[in-house]
C-alpha cells in the first residue's frame, strides 16, 4: 500500500529518533574511529597530524599483531564450535521433555545471565593452582601432576578461558534452538517415524533443516561476540602468560588505555572489523554456494 505524502512525513518523523540515535552512537563513533586510524593521535602528545596509511603499514607488518590475529581466530572458532555443539545437544535433550527438564531449563540460563567478568572470576578461582576446586579434584584423583596449573602455559590458559566462555555462551544456543525445535510441526515428525526413520535420520532430515536458520543466526552472533570478547580473557589470563592468550581485543584495549595510543587502537579495531566482516561474508557466500550445488 502506497503511503500518501502526509503519512510518509509521519513515518519519517517516527523513525527520526532512532535514526538520530544510530547516527550519534553508531555512525559517528565509527567514522571518527576510521578517521583516527589515519592520524597519529596519542593522549600522551599535545600535537596530532595526518599520517595516511602509516598506521596500517606499521601494524600489518608487526609480528605481534599477526600472532594476536591468529589467537583471535583460534579463540573464536573453538568457542563457537564448542558452544554450538553443547548448546545443540542440550536443546535436543531438553526437547525430550524428561522429568525435571523444566527446572533444568531455568538453571541452564544462569551462565548466560551472569556478567562475563563474574564468570571469569568464578572460573579463575575454580581453576586456581593452590585453592581452585576443579584443580584440587583433578590433583586428588591423580588425573594431573601435583604441580599442575591451568595457567602455566599459553595453550592451557587459552583452554581454561575457552571453557569459561563456552560455559557462558552455550545457554544462548540451547534457548534459541530449543524454542525453534518446539515449533516443528508434529505431523512432520510423525510422518518421518511412520516411514521408519531412526533418531539420527529424524534429526538429519527433519529437525536440522527446520532449525538450520536459527543455528546460523546464533552462530553468527556467537562468532561476533567471541571475536570481540575481552572481559573473560582479561580477568582470567590478562593476555598472558607471555602474551600467549593476547587476542586483538586485549591488544586494542592495551593500546588505548595502557599506552594511550588512540590511533593505533583505532587502526587495530578497523582491521578487526574488516577481518570479522570478511569471515562472515565468506561463510555466507560459501553456505549459499553449497546449498545451490546441493539443489
Amino acid at each position, binding site marked *: 500500500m502506497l503511503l500518501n505524502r502526509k503519512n510518509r512525513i509521519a513515518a519519517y518523523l517516527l523513525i527520526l529518533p532512532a535514526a538520530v540515535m544510530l547516527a550519534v552512537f553508531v555512525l559517528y563513533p565509527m567514522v571518527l574511529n576510521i578517521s583516527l586510524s589515519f592520524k597519529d593521535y596519542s593522549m600522551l*602528545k599535545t600535537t596530532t597530524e595526518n599520517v595516511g596509511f602509516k598506521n596500517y603499514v606499521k601494524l600489518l607488518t608487526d609480528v605481534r599483531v599477526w600472532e594476536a590475529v591468529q589467537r583471535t581466530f583460534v579463540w573464536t572458532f573453538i568457542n563457537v564450535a564448542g558452544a554450538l555443539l553443547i548448546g545443540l545437544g542440550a536443546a535436543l535433550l531438553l526437547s525430550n521433555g524428561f522429568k525435571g527438564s523444566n527446572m533444568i531449563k531455568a538453571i541452564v540460563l544462569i551462565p548466560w545471565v551472569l556478567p562475563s567478568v563474574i564468570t571469569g572470576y568464578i572460573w579463575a578461582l575454580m581453576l586456581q593452582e593452590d585453592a581452585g576446586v576443579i584443580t584440587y579434584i583433578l590433583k586428588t584423583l591423580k588425573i594431573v601432576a601435583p604441580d599442575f596449573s591451568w595457567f602455566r602455559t599459553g595453550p592451557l590458559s587459552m583452554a581454561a578461558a575457552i571453557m569459561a566462555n563456552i560455559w557462558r555462551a552455550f545457554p544462548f544456543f540451547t534457548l534459541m534452538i530449543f524454542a525453534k525445535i518446539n515449533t516443528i510441526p508434529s505431523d512432520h515428525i510423525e510422518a518421518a517415524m511412520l516411514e521408519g526413520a531412526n533418531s539420527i535420520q529424524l534429526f538429519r532430515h527433519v529437525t536440522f533443516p527446520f532449525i538450520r536458520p536459527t543455528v546460523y543466526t546464533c552462530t553468527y552472533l556467537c562468532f561476533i561476540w567471541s571475536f570481540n570478547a575481552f572481559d573473560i580473557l582479561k580477568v582470567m589470563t*590478562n593476555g*598472558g602468560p607471555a602474551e600467549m592468550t593476547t587476542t586483538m581485543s586485549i591488544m586494542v584495549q592495551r593500546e588505548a588505555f595502557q599506552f594511550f595510543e588512540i590511533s593505533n587502537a583505532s587502526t587495530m579495531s578497523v582491521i578487526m572489523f574488516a577481518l570479522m566482516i570478511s569471515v562472515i561474508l565468506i561463510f555466507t557466500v560459501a553456505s549459499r554456494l553449497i546449498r545451490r550445488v546441493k539443489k
Partner: protein
Amino acid sequence: MKKALLISMMVLVVAGLVFAQGASEAGGKKEIRVLLWDSTYNSTIVKNGIEEKFEAAYPGYDVIFDKIAYDDLDKTILFSHASGDDYDVIQVITTSLNPLKAGGALAPMDDLIKKTNLDFSTWSPAAVKAGIIDGATYGLPFDPDCRILAYNVKILRELGLEPPKTTDDMLKIAKAAYEKLGVYAMAGQISKNVFCMYDLGGFQLCFDSKVYDLVDGKYTALLDKPEALAFVKWATEMYKYMPKDTNINDTLARSMFAQGKVAMLWWTPSQIKSVIPQFEHREDLEFSVMPVGPTGVRGSAMGGYHWGIGSGSKNKEAAMKFLEFALQPENQALIARGLPADTRAFDYPPYNVPDYNMFREQLKSSSYPAPLIDLFTKVAETWNRRFQESLLGTITPEEACRIGQQEVQAILDTYKY
C-alpha cells in the same frame, strides 16, 4: 502562552547557572577537587580525617575527593584533561608522571612551591628527582615505596638454613624449601606488565643491571650486558620453585606467604598493614634488606605516588595550599600507604614503629628500576613477554636477552628528546 514558557525556561537556566556557581564556591568557600586512588582514600584519607583536618586549618576551602580504581587512574586524569575538566590535585602513579606530563595533563609547580614552607632537604632525593621533568617540577612525592625481603623464619629453621644475604642464598633456600618441604620459594602475578620491573624483576637491580638506562645522553637497552643475562638466568632458576599459576594475584600470593606456603617474598610497606595481621604467629615473619647480587650490589626497586596539579586547574593556588598541608611530615605520615617521602615523617605514627626501620634503611639506597620516561610502560610490557618466556622455559635466557634487547631498543629509538 509561548512567552510565559520562554520566560520560565530563561529563569530556570539563570537559576541553574547561579546554583552551579554557588555549588563551586559553596558558602563562599573555594573548592579544591582532588582525584585519588580509592585505596588511598579509604585507607588513609577517610581513616585519618584528612578532609576535616584540612578544612579546620583552612576554613576558606572546601576539599572534594573523587576516588577511582587504580587501573583507571591514568585514564581518568587524561580524559578529564582532554574534556577540559581538569582536577586541581591529582594522585599520580610515579611511573606515569612522564607520560602525563607529555600529554599536557600536569602543570609545572615551581612558582607555586616557592610560596610554601616545603623544604625538600630531608626528603628522598630519588623520589623528589622523579617529579622533576625537563628541569621543572611536575610532581611532589608523598607515597614512595621500595622493596625489602621478607622470609618465613619457621621454614628456614626447618631447613636448617640461615636468612638470605645474597641472591645465591635465595636460590639455595628456594630449592630446599620446594624439594624438601613442598613450599614455594616466592609467589606473584607474572602476567602483570610490571613483573619484569618490580616484583621478581626488581631483583635485577641487585645484579647491577637495568632493562635500559641513559647512556651518553641516549636511552639505551642494556639487556645484552652479562649482568642482565646473569639476572635472567637467576630468575628463571628461581621460577622453577614458584607457583606455576601465572595469573595468581598479589593478594592471594601474600595470603599464601602468611599461611606458610611460601618461603620468601618481596615486601612492600603497604603489606605491613595488610599482610602481617594474616600471620597466625607474628614471630614467623622476619625482614631483611634486599640481598646482595653477584657483584656486591644491593638494589631495591622504588615505586609509589606523587601529587600533581592539573594543567587546566582553575584553582592552582588553592591546590598548592592543600598540598602544603598534606605534605607536612605529620600529615604525610597519615596519608602515605607505602612510605612517606620526607624522612622526618618516620617520627610520626604509624611510621614510628620498628616494622618500618628496615624500609627507612632500604629507601636510602633504592632507585627506580629504569628511567621513568613516557615509554616506561611500553618497554615493561614488551620486555615482560620475553622475560616470561624465559621463566616458562619456552626460550632460553640468552634468547630472551637477545630478542628483548632488539625489541626494547626499537621502542627507545622512538623517544623524542
